C-alpha cells in the first residue's frame, strides 16, 4: 500500500514548518513522508482491539513541583541565547498581528 504525497500537501506542510524547500528537496521530502505513512500503515495491520491507547512512553504519573520560587534573576545568561538584545529584551523581526 504505497502512499503518495501531493504537491499541495508538501507545500502546506512546508508553510506550517516555515521551511522553504527547493524542488529537489520537495521531491525528497515527498518520498520520505510517503515512506513514513507506509510504515504507519504497516503498524495499522496489527489488531489493537481492547488495547488501551498509550498516553506516555514511561509508566510514570504525577510528577509535580511545589509552588515555591527556586529561580532568581538570571537575565544576563538568558539573554546570551537571544539573537539580539535591547533594553533587557530579546530582539526579533518586527511582528505585528
Amino acid at each position, binding site marked *: 500500500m504505497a502512499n503518495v504525497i501531493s504537491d499541495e500537501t508538501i507545500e502546506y506542510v512546508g508553510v506550517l514548518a516555515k521551511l522553504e524547500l527547493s524542488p529537489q528537496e520537495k521531491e525528497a521530502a515527498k518520498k520520505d513522508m510517503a515512506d513514513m505513512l507506509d510504515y504507519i500503515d504497516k503498524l495499522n495491520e496489527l489488531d489493537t482491539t481492547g488495547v488501551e491507547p498509550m498516553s506516555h512512553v514511561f509508566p510514570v504519573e504525577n510528577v509535580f513541583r511545589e509552588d515555591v520560587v527556586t529561580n532568581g534573576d538570571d537575565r544576563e545568561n*538568558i539573554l546570551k541565547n537571544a539573537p539580539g538584545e535591547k533594553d533587557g*529584551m530579546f530582539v526579533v523581526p518586527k511582528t505585528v498581528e
Partner: protein
Amino acid sequence: MMGKQYETVIGLEVHVELATKTKIFCGCSTAFGGEPNTHTCPVCTGMPGSLPVLNKQVLDYAIAVGLAANCEITRYCKFDRKNYFYPDNPQNYQISQLYLPICRNGWVEVETSGGKKKIGIHEIHMEEDAGKLIHDDWEDVSLVDYNRSGVPLIEIVSRPDMRNAEEVIAYLEKLRLIIQYLGASDCKLQEGSMRADINLSVREAGTEKLGTRTEMKNLNSFRAIARAIQGETERQTELLEAGKEVVQETRRWDDAKECSYAMRSKEDAQDYRYFPDPDLTPVRIDDAWLERIKAAQPEFRTEKMARYREEFGIPDYDIEIITNSKRMADLFEETTAICGQPKKVSNWLMGETLRLMKETETDAEDIRFSPENLAKLIALVDEKAVSTNVAKEVFEKMFLENVDPRAYVEENGLKAVSDEGALRKTVEEVIAANPRSVEDYRGGKEKAIGFLVGQTMKAMQGKADPGTVNRLLKELLS
C-alpha cells in the same frame, strides 16, 4: 412586510491567570512588574533540552474552580502541544490540553432581568501564558519580555448558551466571584488576569442551526464587552439582511473607535497539529485528592449572604455589596470578629470605603487598611476619643496608607478633649463672643444653637464631641 427576527448566540472563552507564586512548569516567579526577562529560565524561554515539571498548585486551583462550576473532573488527564510560530511563544508550541482537559460538562447559574439561567461549561483546561511583545519605536524590530511566558492559565470554555450582553456580563461576574472566593486569581479584566474572547453568531429566531460565528478578542472591560456584542450583532444582522454571508474569522475590538476589524480569517486558519507532550507525565487524580479539594472549598457568595442575614442583622443591600467582593467580605468578617459591631463595620465599608474606592479608582481587592485598624477606629469613635468628622479624616489616611488610627490620632493631636473643664471654658468664650446667636436661641430660635456648636468645634479644631458641646451649651444658656 415584517422584518425577520434574529437571535444572537454567544459562547465565551475565558482565560484566567492563576495566583500561583511560580510559573506552571518552572520555579520562576510570577510576580507582576519585574524588569523585562528577570523572571525567566531555560524552561520558560524554550531552550532545547530544558524540561518542564508541573506546579501542583495549578492542578489544585483548576480542580477547585471545576468543582465550584459543577464540572466533572477528568481523573486521568494530560498535556498536549499546540504548535504555532510566534515570537511571544519561544518553544514554538504552547503546552495546553486538548484531548483530556482537567474539567468537563459543568454549569453556573446566573441571574439577569430575564430571571435565573444556567450557563453550560464545555470544559476547563490548563495552559501556559505567552511572553509580551513590544514594538520598538525607533527600529524595525519587536522586543520580547518572557516574564509572562509560562504563567499558569485556565481557559474556561462555555457552551453557546448566552443570548445578550447582560447574560455575558452576569456570567463573567459569576466566574469572577467564584474564582476570587477560591483565591485562585484576582480576575482583573483591565490588567489582563481575566480575559474574555467572545464567539458570536446570529440566526433567525426559532431556527435550530447555528449561524457562522466570529471570535472577538481584546475586550478588557465590561463596557467594551457590551459594546462589542452590540456592534457585532448589528454587523452580522446587516450582512444577513443583505443576503450576504458571515465569514468565520477572528476580529479585534477597538474600543476607542467602537468597531472591530478582521485579524485572520478561517482560510489561513492555523493548523495547530496538537500532540501529547512527551516531557510531561500524565496526571491521575484519586479520590483522596478530590476529597481534599472539596473539603477546602470556601463558603461561596450565596451561602455567605444567607449566613450574614442570619448572623449580623445588616440590611440586604449592604450584604449584596459586601459579598460582591471576597476582599470586602473578609474585611467585614475579620473586623466584626474583633469589635463585635457588624452594623458599624458595614457603615464604614458602605460609606467611606466605597466613596474613597470610587474617588481613587481602587478595586476592592487592592484595599490596604487592615481589619485591626478599622476596629481601632470604631473603638476610638465609641470612646468619644474622636468626633465623627475627625474619624472620617483618620479613615481617609488609613485607607490610603493603612496608618494605625490610635497612633495617628495621638501623633497629630486629634484626640477629642474629654476634659470637660477645658471644653466648658471654650463654650463660655463662644457664648460671650456671639451675643446675637445667644439672643436668638433664648428668643426661641432652636436652630441658633447649631451655629454655636459649630463655632465651638472650630475653636476646638474639631477635637470635641459635638454631643457634649451641645449639652454644655444648653446647660449654660438655660
